[in-house]
């Protein structure tokens, strides 16, 4: 035990290590949590014990977690300033560290080793002879919060790789909310597989009685089953909605086509009617006689186009009546001319 760290009277040093953090047996553990306070409580008890035992602690966490952890350690009687001065308590900002190991948004194994390797070396050098370096890492949780679950899986692999050359006990923690989608289940499985010890979120681990735990598992199984059914039902609803949307789109396209046809059928005879009438009016206004052949052409055109227009109007009105009788609001091709 490091004599400089007087934690012998603290409640923390007497408390048993929280579930999921067994540094001696598990070199790379993972904990899932719902509540930040629960996580900080677990970490502070574990790290107070580690520091009191002469070990070093490396924390790569968010500012709020670093601050809460430091407050709690101090409250529990750990002389954190002294530990920091001795190089036995190293706290790094997770976001900043993540930026350094992911240049251009891509995880760089070399940068990871260059950043974390020497940090562990320093912590090891500052530790007592029998003590192992305890690390809390949140880089992976930040990646998941950004939706980069696969990069988190890769980073967990890099930690395991680093463990071949460095002696440390790493504890990772993920808030359950970063696995909010059904498809995140695969990544969760891979993350669990990358660890030697897994601790479920506190809703399970705080149950002491085995009978309670079994009941909880049964309830969770029921919830999972109900959710799976719900997902299936939603998928079916989604399919129905997509089919209706495509039907609606087709109906709108049919309506646009119908309107374009109707505009053409009405405006084409109107164009001739108006233009021939204006042609004759020009002659009349200029007080010049209209040549008999010109008058005949114009009047024949007007007569024919009036008939065509009347036919178009009749057809349109018929299709409107038929549409109402069918209770169908979308025009269909059989009503178009």
């Amino acid at each position, binding site marked *: 035990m490091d004599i400089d760290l007087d934690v012998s009277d603290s409640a923390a040093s007497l408390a048993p290590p929280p579930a999921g953090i067994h540094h001696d047996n598990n070199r790379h553990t993972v904990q899932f949590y719902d509540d930040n306070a629960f996580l900080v409580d677990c970490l502070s008890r574990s790290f107070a014990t580690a520091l009191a035992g002469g070990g070093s602690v490396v924390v790569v966490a968010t500012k709020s977690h670093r601050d809460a952890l430091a407050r709690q350690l101090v409250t529990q009687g750990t002389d954190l300033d002294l530990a920091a001065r001795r190089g036995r308590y190293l706290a790094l900002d997770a976001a900043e560290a993540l930026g350094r190991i992911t240049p251009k948004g891509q995880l760089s194994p070399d940068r990871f080793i260059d950043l974390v390797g020497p940090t562990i070396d320093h912590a090891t050098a500052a530790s007592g002879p029998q003590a192992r370096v305890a690390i809390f890492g949140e880089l992976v949780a930040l990646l998941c919060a950004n939706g980069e679950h696969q990069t988190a899986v890769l980073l967990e692999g890099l930690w395991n790789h680093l463990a071949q050359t460095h002696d440390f006990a790493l504890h990772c923690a993920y808030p359950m909310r970063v696995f909010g989608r059904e498809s995140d289940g695969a990544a969760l499985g891979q993350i669990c597989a990358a660890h030697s010890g897994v601790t479920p979120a506190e809703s399970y681990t705080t149950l002491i009685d085995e009978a309670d735990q079994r009941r909880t598992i049964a309830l969770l199984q029921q919830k999972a089953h109900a959710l799976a059914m719900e997902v299936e039902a939603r998928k079916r609803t989604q399919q129905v909605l997509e089919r209706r949307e495509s039907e609606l789109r087709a109906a709108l396209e049919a309506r646009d086509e119908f309107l374009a046809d109707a505009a053409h059928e009405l405006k084409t005879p109107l164009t*001739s009617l108006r*233009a021939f009438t204006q042609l004759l009016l020009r002659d009349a206004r200029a007080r010049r006689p209209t040549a008999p052949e010109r008058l005949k052409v114009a009047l024949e055109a007007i007569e*024919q186009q009036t008939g065509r227009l009347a036919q178009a109007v009749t057809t349109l009105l018929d299709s409107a009546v038929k549409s109402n009788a069918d209770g169908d609001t979308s025009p269909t091709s059989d009503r178009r001319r």
Partner: protein
Amino acid sequence: MADVLVIDDDSHIRQVIQLALEDDGHTVESAVDGRTALAQIDRRHPDVILLDIRMPGMDGREFVRRYRERHGHRAPIIALTASQDAVANGVSIGADDYLAKPFDLDALAARVTTHTPPHRR
């Protein structure tokens, strides 16, 4: 005065445009669809083209595409459209100008004069 080519599948519209523009002193030829018009243009290139959009055979859109390929912007093309959205329809096919059907003969005459090259006015 301009050489005008009218392309429209409706014979009455071709006829009335021809009569009105000839009254104003223009020379007018006509074609029933895009394909016929392209063949006529190879023989005699008009100063201004009046183009219906909706035609059987080669329609106005296809005519503009082929005309631009062969002749670029040599003659201005005025689209004659019965669409409810005349501007969008005229512009979308790549015409230089448009006239919504039914149009006034005075508006047609003014549009043709505007697009007639200065040396032909």
